[in-house]
């Protein structure tokens, strides 16, 4: 069954007719030609499809397009408007934080959103004492925090040894 949805993707408005079964990931890749979010597991386990939906990182493979009519979406491509790379993208290059690169757009989008979450004082499972304190101050991001907060993004080349320092670099600034 078809439904018409409006999506604002990386600053551009689109109106597209989709089957109700279409996920945001498939709408972006197959209908709007934005192949920046990748299809890895298609079951919400690998994070390669991570996008910003209304400013928050989500797995686009588990979000039905029809349920997000009117949504504002940013993909990894949208982090670099006019070819000017986002600081996180520059850090990934500086630290060689990839091998095959398939998970990288999802890693970068997730890391950008993760820094914003920490900025807003969101705790994590390794911030045990901070959970009770709840003072809303910025969470300090060491390597343990970054690994925990990025655990929804898998890299089967196992480039974690460079991904973590790349994110640490931007978190320090």
């Amino acid at each position, binding site marked *: 069954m078809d439904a018409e949805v409006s999506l604002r993707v990386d600053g551009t408005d689109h109106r597209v007719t989709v*089957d109700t*079964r279409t996920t945001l990931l498939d709408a972006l890749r197959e209908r709007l030609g934005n192949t920046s979010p990748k299809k890895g597991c298609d079951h*919400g386990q690998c994070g390669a499809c991570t996008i910003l939906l209304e400013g928050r990182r989500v*797995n686009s493979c588990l979000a039905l397009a029809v349920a997000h009519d009117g949504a504002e979406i940013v993909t990894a491509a949208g982090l670099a408007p006019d070819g000017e790379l986002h600081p996180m993208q520059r850090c990934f290059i500086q630290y060689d934080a990839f091998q095959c690169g398939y998970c990288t757009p999802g890693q970068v989008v997730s890391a950008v959103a993760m820094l914003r979450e920490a900025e807003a004082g969101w705790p994590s499972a390794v911030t045990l004492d901070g959970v009770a304190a709840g003072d809303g101050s910025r969470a300090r991001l060491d390597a343990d925090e970054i690994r925990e907060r990025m655990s929804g993004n898998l890299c089967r080349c196992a480039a974690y040894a460079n991904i973590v320092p790349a994110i640490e670099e931007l978190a320090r600034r």
Partner: protein
Amino acid sequence: MRPFRYARADDVTGAVALLAESPDGAFLGGGTNLVDLMKLDVATPDLLVDVRRLTSDQVEELPDGGIRIGAATPNSDLAAHPLVRSRYPVLSQALLSGASGQLRNLATAGGNLLQRTRCVYFQNVTTPCNKREPGTGCPAIDGHHRELAILGASPECVATHPSDFAVALVALDATVHTEGPDGGRRIPITELHRLPGGEPHRDTVLAHGELITAIEVPPLAFATRSRYRKVRDRASYAFALVSVAAAVDMTDGIVRDVRIALGGVAPKPWRASRAEELLRGGPAREDRFRAAAEAELAEAVPLPGNAFKVPLARNTLTRTLLDLVDGPA
């Protein structure tokens, strides 16, 4: 994925009415579990009624000092909420120990309680499963059951309930508010999920078309001293082998009151009432904690592949209580 119709309603009453007309329909919240199960053909609704905008997505403070959680509240907002963090740290910790940052942003509080088991046979339509298809059998009992139940299971089903959040809510005696075709009701969270018995396809006591609208957590002063400890195969982003939600009220080395629930060991979040009873009024000592844990697990019926969960649950419970009485108030 099977074709389905998608519908929205103006309010909760409208959504309930829409689903009442569709015996094979389902409510759609964040979709993180349902959409996945639809891709696997495990869930085959012919209608999805989107309820994400129909209930509150906020945490409110109640006059008695408790909180009311709107069913549409994302798991991430709930875990980060100052009232939840300060009054019920066990709730924040349980939420943060589950899923990933991306999933917690989509998943809702109400949906978290209704997620289905991750038993591999339930998720695989090429195998029999009494929970997915009643009467077809349970291959887990003689097959792969390392993650499955040691308490409360039946010869029909040994699945575990996967939620961390629900385990913490059970320890805190929360109440679930629902609206259904026959009106509204309040269900103690300890009675929301059911043991499989001969009907493992029914995870909860909810009727078809009954929608969770809110979750209320009553005031519990000593919950400021509470903790969720989760043991799993990976350090992050994995379901519990065993988990413990606990809160302790201790004065002068005596356990005045205590709340304990176990996760990963049963078809529902397991309130450890027997252990609580043994601990109340006694000294806060390791040997007492261990004895209480052993008493709670005395009726465990482990399978060959998950017998390790009995000592693991005993040790995790003992350690969690020790952390609580040794740690800062």
